[in-house]
């Protein structure tokens, strides 16, 4: 079995024993994989700070289902500006955890790889803001096929009018005839979210304050429905952004 060269982001890193580490990587070529890094804790020579969360690295790895083996890691960026700012760290870790829990193992998703790269590049140059986080989330859901319905009712298919939509459990959006309570999502919110999917560039869409909050309700619902567990980094993110 030969080693493959992969482009990747470190999603998480777990100490294993005294000297080893198990890392979760999001690779361009194979999607999310788990890899064993022998000696990563003690010998700084081999891996250095390469195996820390949100680092962008090129790796040599022997790919195996379940647990691959990392032979070498070269740092492309550790994102020093993110590391120097508490809110940016919190947002970057949240993005990594989200990709970690919501993606299937071993399936390449190049569009999501590029989205994560774009988000981390954005955090490296700009302050962490909620609009960018929501932009990342709605695009992530879209790429994975979990896109919330922003144009028409998920139950009766009638288009959303000026009144907007009503949010149901699991991120379902319904019209006012099908709604059984729930939070209202204005048409401005729905439009801002679809614009996020159309532009594909961070920082282009302005959410009005009310829309930001509504988009948050929708995305939080949709994400928790698809991620299976509550994200650990979310509490810290809320704690320091509040």
């Amino acid at each position, binding site marked *: 079995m030969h080693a493959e060269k992969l482009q990747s982001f470190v999603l*998480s890193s777990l100490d294993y*024993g*005294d*000297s080893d580490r198990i890392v979760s990587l999001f690779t361009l070529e194979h999607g999310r994989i788990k890899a064993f890094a022998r000696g990563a*804790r*003690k010998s*700084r020579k081999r*891996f*250095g*700070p*390469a*195996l*820390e*969360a*949100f680092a962008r690295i090129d790796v040599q790895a022997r790919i195996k289902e379940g647990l691959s083996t990392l032979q070498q890691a070269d740092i492309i960026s*550790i994102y020093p500006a993110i*590391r*120097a*700012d*508490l809110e940016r*760290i*919190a947002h970057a*870790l*949240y993005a*990594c*955890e989200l990709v970690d829990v919501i993606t299937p193992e071993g399936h390449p998703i190049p569009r999501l790889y590029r989205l994560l790269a774009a988000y981390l590049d954005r955090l490296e140059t700009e302050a962490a803001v909620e609009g960018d986080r929501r932009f990342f989330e709605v695009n992530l859901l879209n790429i994975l096929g979990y896109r919330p319905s922003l144009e028409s009712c998920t139950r009766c298919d009638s288009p959303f009018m000026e009144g907007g939509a009503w949010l149901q459990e699991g991120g379902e959006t319904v019209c006012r005839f099908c709604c059984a309570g729930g939070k209202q999502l204005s048409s401005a919110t729905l439009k801002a979210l679809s614009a996020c999917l159309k532009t594909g560039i961070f920082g282009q869409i302005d959410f009005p304050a009310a829309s930001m909050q509504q988009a948050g309700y929708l995305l939080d619902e949709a994400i928790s429905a698809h991620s299976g567990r509550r994200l*650990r*980094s979310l*509490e*810290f*993110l809320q*704690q*320091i952004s509040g």
Partner: protein
Amino acid sequence: MLTKSSSLMRLVGELKKLPGVGERTALRLAFHLLKSPGNLTALSEALVDVKEKVRACSTCFAITENDPCAICSGNRDAAAVCVVENSQDLMSLERSNAWHGVYHVLEGAISPLSGIGPSSIRIAELLARVEAGGVSEVVIATNFTVEGEATALYLTKVLKPTGVKVTRLAHGIPLGSDIEFVDAATVQWALQGRNEL
């Protein structure tokens, strides 16, 4: 034949919980101990002693047998507090002989991916120590990992309003480093060249 509940298998089970020890190593260690009853007695006594005598210092939370610990009750500059993640890091700094102040052991670092937030480690206790007065400088010596940096940034944020001088170890400690594994000379150099935050 040994059953799962036999004392030997229980020992193997406990050994396996140690970092880096798998089934085979645990078995080897257990049989090794069994061969030398003297070692077995010494080990069991040491374990009981540790359990009964070792605790955290009520001031700095360093591992100690006497409370307050030797550093807190010794002839040190109590106005300068060096904040470390754990007692192993404290020992590394002590080995450098470059620090004459006291310590504060956080018993961990903020690690959002593991669900360890500011309230899970001894940050409130540090803040209380500073607010009680008598501390003029806090030197943050958390690891140079993402978790250590997050902890340092968070500490800076909550300590700044108290007016205390906050500095961070700087020079020469490579990114991604665990203080525990950094050599004494580098630690000395880093303590001298700390940066104000």
